[in-house]
């Protein structure tokens, strides 16, 4: 766990990419992309259909260790509008356990706009203590925590380079890494991020043993 301050609130980040707001007993997670694997099936690409199970198990195992009552999902929880219909029983049970045990806030992501599911209410945006929880960051000067971009960073260690997921933060913005096990990433050096961050942001690199915060210029 590493502590970061955002809008004068104290947050903790875990190595697997969850943001904890312990003062409020909240866990925040972004971009689960459930059933991404099976979404390729109709085109004849049969990826191992276990990603949802893996993602949800990982998530439940991490948050059960802490005193959490509420979970905010920052969108793209489901990979496509039919994701639900493809879930195995095991995954459905896991999902049910999850939403029964916690108060889950679903923020709407771009992958879910066409989704119709009566039991889930999607928020375009969720606001708490002046912090806006949204899927994709906006240009407004408001404190916002978002996902969408799946940021990853690359760092050179000796002669080798390693790439890992990361959190990016500046004054108004905190962008979270994707959590789903089949999600890829967008390097923080991509020009898209230049448009979002005016200054060099803080980058928290999720390593296997620990979370590292290197100065921005060391990222490749």
């Amino acid at each position, binding site marked *: 766990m590493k502590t970061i301050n955002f809008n004068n609130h104290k947050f903790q980040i875990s190595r697997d990419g969850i943001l904890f707001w312990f003062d409020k007993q909240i866990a925040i997670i972004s971009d689960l992309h459930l059933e991404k*694997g*099976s979404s390729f*099936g*109709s*085109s*004849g*690409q*049969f*990826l*191992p*259909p*276990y*990603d949802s*199970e*893996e993602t949800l198990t990982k998530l439940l195992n991490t948050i059960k260790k802490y005193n959490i009552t509420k979970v905010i999902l920052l969108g793209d929880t489901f990979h496509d509008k039919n994701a639900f219909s*493809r879930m*195995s029983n095991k995954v459905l049970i896991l999902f049910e356990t999850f939403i029964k045990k916690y108060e889950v806030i679903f923020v709407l992501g771009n992958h879910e706009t066409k989704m119709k599911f009566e039991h889930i209410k999607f928020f375009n945006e969720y606001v708490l203590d002046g912090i806006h929880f949204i899927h994709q960051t906006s240009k407004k000067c408001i404190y916002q925590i978002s996902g969408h971009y799946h940021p990853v960073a690359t*760092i050179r*260690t*000796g*002669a*080798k*380079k*390693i790439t890992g997921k990361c959190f990016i933060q500046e004054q108004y913005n905190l962008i979270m890494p994707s959590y789903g*096990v*089949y*999600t*890829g*990433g967008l390097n923080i050096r991509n020009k898209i991020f230049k448009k979002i961050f005016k200054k060099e942001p803080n980058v928290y690199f999720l*390593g*296997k*043993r*620990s979370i*590292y915060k*290197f*100065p921005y210029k*060391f990222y*490749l």
Partner: protein
Amino acid sequence: MPHILKIKPIDNWLKKNNWNYYDHQIETLKLSQNGFDVLLVAPTGGGKTLAGFLPSLNDLINNRPKKNKLHTLYISPLKALTIDVHRNLNNPIEDQGLDIRVETRTGDTSAYKKNRQKVLPPHMLMTTPESLALLLSNKESKDYFKDLRYLIIDEIHVLVNSKRGDLLSLNLSRINSMSPDCKRIGLSATVKNKNTVLKFLTSKKKTKILNVEETSHPKIEILETNTRVPWSGHMASYAIKDIYQKIKKSSLTIVFVNTRAQAELVFNKLWQENDKNLRIAIHHGSLEKEIRRKVESLMSLGKIDCVVATSSLDLGIDWGDIDLVIQIGSPKGISRFLQRIGRSNHKFDEPSNALLVPSNRFEYLECLSAINSIKNKLLDETKEKKGSLDVLAQHILGVACSAPFHVDELYNQVINAWPYRHLTKIKFFEVLEFVKNGGYSLKYYEQYSKIALNKNKLYAIKNKSIRNRYKLNVGTIVESYMLKVKLGNRTLGQVEEWFIEGLNEGDTFLFSGRVLEYQTILNDNVIVKSTSHTQPKIPSYAGGRLPLSTELSIEVRKLLSKKQFWKNFPNQINEWLKLQSKFSNLPSLNGLLVETFPRLVSGKKRFFLICYTFEGRNANQTLGFLILRKMQRIGCKPISFVATDYALAIWSINEVKDINIILNDDLMLDDLYEWLEETPLLKKNFRDAAIISGLIERSIPGQKKTGKQVLFNSDLIFNVLRKHEPKHLLLEVARDDSYRGLIDLDRLSEFLKRIENNITYKKLDRISPLAVPLILEINRQTIDKSEMEEYFLEELENEILSEVGLN
């Protein structure tokens, strides 16, 4: 020569050129006429190709078979070879005005020509295993191959025991069911396991191996030089002046090197010496096709004095007038060296001329061993490999693409292919399930099956788009993602993406024989400009370095263990070994020499452990990881290790107290399985298997997918699959490949058996002479330390933080 031949036009053509048939050519024809499938084993340049085609030419000329039907199929492992053979065969055909159409079909053939070949097949078609698989996946393939009379496979020894060979073998079995009377002729270089090659060629009973002995012995020497042979390194820069002198004296020289990076460097250095302005060219697999073709044609026209080449020029092609072959660095294996030597004086009855240039001291011993082995007619043995299941998966889909199949018929056809002869029906069905819908225990994908039973109980593809996609994914070679190097409008060739990623704007590197300055990447092109820099970074390419072969390694140990051999060594080598025997000991023929000594590394005392295994780089690397693990467990705090073909050096913070605990084989193999699961190698092999088997596509029509994305995705899949279905087909394939490949498990187990109770241990107070090359190597190599990456991160963070004053 009295013979029963009535191939008048060929007789005439030979007479016109003052040539005559070789005995083995007549023999091949007779055997084939009597219904034998023939494997012709002969050294290069023995008129092998004509021997292969003689039965077919005879039939075409004398029996005038059906018009507009494919009569003869010629398969070679190299595109360039099909083109070359096509040209050579056309000489007599055109000269004698024969009505025989010969065409090639490879990845380079235009769509127009391919279509025409479909409608109007040539008499003879020359192709590669991959293009053959594609041709066979067409709907009309059964009819197309129905009248095939002759099948010739060139350089067949290269294909046996490889995934490419698996694919070919499956298709050979398929062709057999379409045209059962077709006669086969295999052409092979001299190999140890001829019978395996024969079995690979044909499953018929009436077969014969024709063995043509070499009539002349190659003249091979090791370069004599007044310069010091370096302790370590692979570039042989010390010998460039001497090499240049040799090139000057010959009319056409090929300088063989082992890697593309070496090729670039040697080429560059030779031009620095080139005061006589000799025409020196470069040839390797990463260069643009046009550039390679140009060099090849200049060679055959005699318009070049020297070519620096990698294995891209190893095989088959008849260049004619090369009078000297120079091998820089050890050839690493006997068979490969023979093949390369055969490039010179490509005439049957004249000796080849070759010069070996060791690039370091150990390689001197290796080069000498290679010469001894050739004198004693020793050959490398290739380990037998059972047919890969990922290739079978690709094949099953290919069969379904051409026509619906019956399961039992296909199974019988598959086990008729030599590499798959032991395949059980259960395994076959497992692969079939995988092709259908991924083969997961979760039956979710059934609705999307690629192939399904039709009303006649035959398996058929669901729709046409599956065939189109199959065609984009044919083949067993998975290359790393390459970027085109562009100088202005010219494409010079390709380099691996990761190499370019390591460069910064303005960095310089050697490529295609030029020093280039890296500018930027634009749409998958590396934009470069020419520069006058003289100290370029050298491009490095993944793979390419073969480990020292088992046979050669035995020869090296023999040389070392018997002092009477040493007197013929150059002084510097002799002195080095003498010093070693005085100071420590020499490795014995069957045992293992282990040395330990303390040494300062950046001011800190470290303990070095050296094992002189001589088991090749791959086995040594694996052993290194295993010993590292064990040392970690017993508290020696190992730091890192370096592995070469000859030895392994591990250094640690604490001293190793008991060598026997470290080298106990039982414990070691347990560790191996555990370790393998964590290696990047397994991931890489999984990716290859996933692509070959069709789980991940090379490319999707209309959608561009970069090589990097494939890698990223396959890693994610790998982790999930390993957890949920650890026995999945593709994981099994990846593990098998890892054990066979870089890990060299067989060799390692044999090694551990060999050294049991046969370890000589020397505790020294300082570095031994034999260890010097190894310690120097430490500074050159950066090992793949994926396990220790995290240590580096911690260190790095602290270092950087103090540097910027935050710590």
